[in-house]
């Protein structure tokens, strides 16, 4: 195989493998209420991992007032859920009041919002399909 062909094949293969293995999920938060602190986000693959609190990966992005976007990269095919919160005081914890109600902004993929309690897993699902290269999900921030 000539070198040129090898390069061509490698490029083709790597592109192909990217197609199979690496989808990106673009997460857009509708409204962050200040530039203070950071957004801590986790993505979970499947219900079990979500319930057990075992994220596929985590991200930290600086908070900016207004709309915020970031990417989870290299996601394989499957069912995902994102949860995030606005760590306004930079203590790496979602602060709550004495009864466990969050006192910092929080949100979930697919704009899932709970009603008299946390949202249901099924309402926050984002599907990365076999041929998905890029997917989008919106998060409604709740303060």
């Amino acid at each position, binding site marked *: 195989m000539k070198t040129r062909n090898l390069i061509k094949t490698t490029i083709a293969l790597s592109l192909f493998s990217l197609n199979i293995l690496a989808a990106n999920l673009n997460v857009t938060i509708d409204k962050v209420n200040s530039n203070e602190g950071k957004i801590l986000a986790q993505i979970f693959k499947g219900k079990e991992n979500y319930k057990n609190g075992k994220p596929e990966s985590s991200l930290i992005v600086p908070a900016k007032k207004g709309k915020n976007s970031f990417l989870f990269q290299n996601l394989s095919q499957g069912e995902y859920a994102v949860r995030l919160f606005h760590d306004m005081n930079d203590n790496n914890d979602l*602060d709550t*009041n*004495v*009864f*466990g*109600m969050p*006192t910092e902004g929080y949100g979930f993929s697919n704009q899932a*919002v*709970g*009603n*008299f*309690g946390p949202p249901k897993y099924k309402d926050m699902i984002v599907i990365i399909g076999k041929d998905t290269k890029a997917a989008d999900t919106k998060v409604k921030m*709740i303060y």
Partner: protein
Amino acid sequence: MNRREFIQSLAVLGITASHLPTALLASNNKTWKQKYETALKFDPRLIGHQNYTQERQAKSLFIEGGFPKDFSGTFYRNGPALLERADVRQKHLFDGDGMIHAFKFENGNVSFKNKFVQTYKYQKEQKAGRFLYDLSDLGLKTPESVTSADTINNANTNILPVGDEIWALWEAGSAYGMHPETLETKGAITLNTQLKGAPFSAHPKIDADGTIWNFGLDYSSGQIIVYKLNPKGVMQKFGIVKTDYHAMLHDFLITDKHILLVLPSLRVNPKGKGFAAQQQFDENRSLRVLVVDKNDFSLKATHEFPACFLFHFGNAWEEKDGTIRFDGCRYPNLEVLNRMENIMQGDTFLMKDTISQTVIFTIYPDGKTKQEAFAGSTEFPRIYPALTGKRNEKIFTIGDTKNAQWADSIRSMSIDTGKIDQYVYGEDYLVEEHVLIEKPKQKGGYLIGTALNWKKQQSCVSLFDAENIKAGPLARAWLEFHIPLGFHGNFKMS
């Protein structure tokens, strides 16, 4: 008013009983709003529960009699006012948005102002022009999710002067701070970050030294938070009392040593649509009194009384031997809650179980208990503020003498002698809570309260000598319009 009297009053209005089935009873297909509007045509007393949206001012009210020279301050009241949006009427009176009414007394003149509490809910729904939160099976097509109690906080229950603010109170979420003169809303109050959005009841109790005590029940966990605030509303400390109680808890009591958390005989039916519909009376569940230490918030004892329901308590105190006594307005069950739903659709028929009576509850040092009930219909008990937590002789209440739709009279009762000092406003009036004001540097005090004259369609505020109620009002100031029937209020001396 009972059914017969109601029909008689219709006859006076030129309506015969034969109209009744079509007008009132065969209205199953009508909306809640249509039912109310139909009923209002037949029963003008229902004007007190009409949707009210207008914020108003009056510089100088028409005065009957004269207000005493030493009488200077503002009487604030709170209650549900906005009851409808986009042709949808709230089903329960508790669900209306709170409006603050302020009567200011100065140099013999009385001025008036009212404003809505600009809660998160009110502002959001005002912008949308419709109800966004379905609080009681309103059938909204795309209701918004309720993500915290403060999402639906309507701050509609009481108004309390605290420091240089007034606080509009609900019972399941934050207090809202407001300016005492302009009535502009400053925002939801966070006492500290650990307590952001925590429930703060509408019935704080104030010690003689100005210390503010309050509680809040977290419905989901059954934990009751107990607050101690200084007179300016700054948090001193708080504690948590764990219970298995998850239902409505409206009021509480303090003595000089203890906090009394009185848990009525209620359970929650999770299938009920809306807060009120979820509340269920359980005749097999005792009324429980949790005695909590004021110093460290520890639970000292739990006492039981036969099953009953109470919204409101007047006062509690402890005798030298440790005997605890307190009073409350006792209902045999929870029918009163249904009544406040029925009235929203114009049904004013009274059920006997919706009458409450004053009861003195006694807990002896050996744990034995006793109840003494006093005759007559009573609600909204108040006492001289300086006696909070100490022995009081008199309880001041409103009540009805002729099965009124709301209340028609005020009275004081001596718990020692049973002697009653009463003034009946009469059938033209719907009488609201009356509040005690101590006279500076002398014994006795004034009793102040509002009433709606449904015939005139005008509201008034009346001042009485609290030690001679039967003599009638010392002075009365009239608005040229009516204000909606509300819940609680307080007076701030100036």
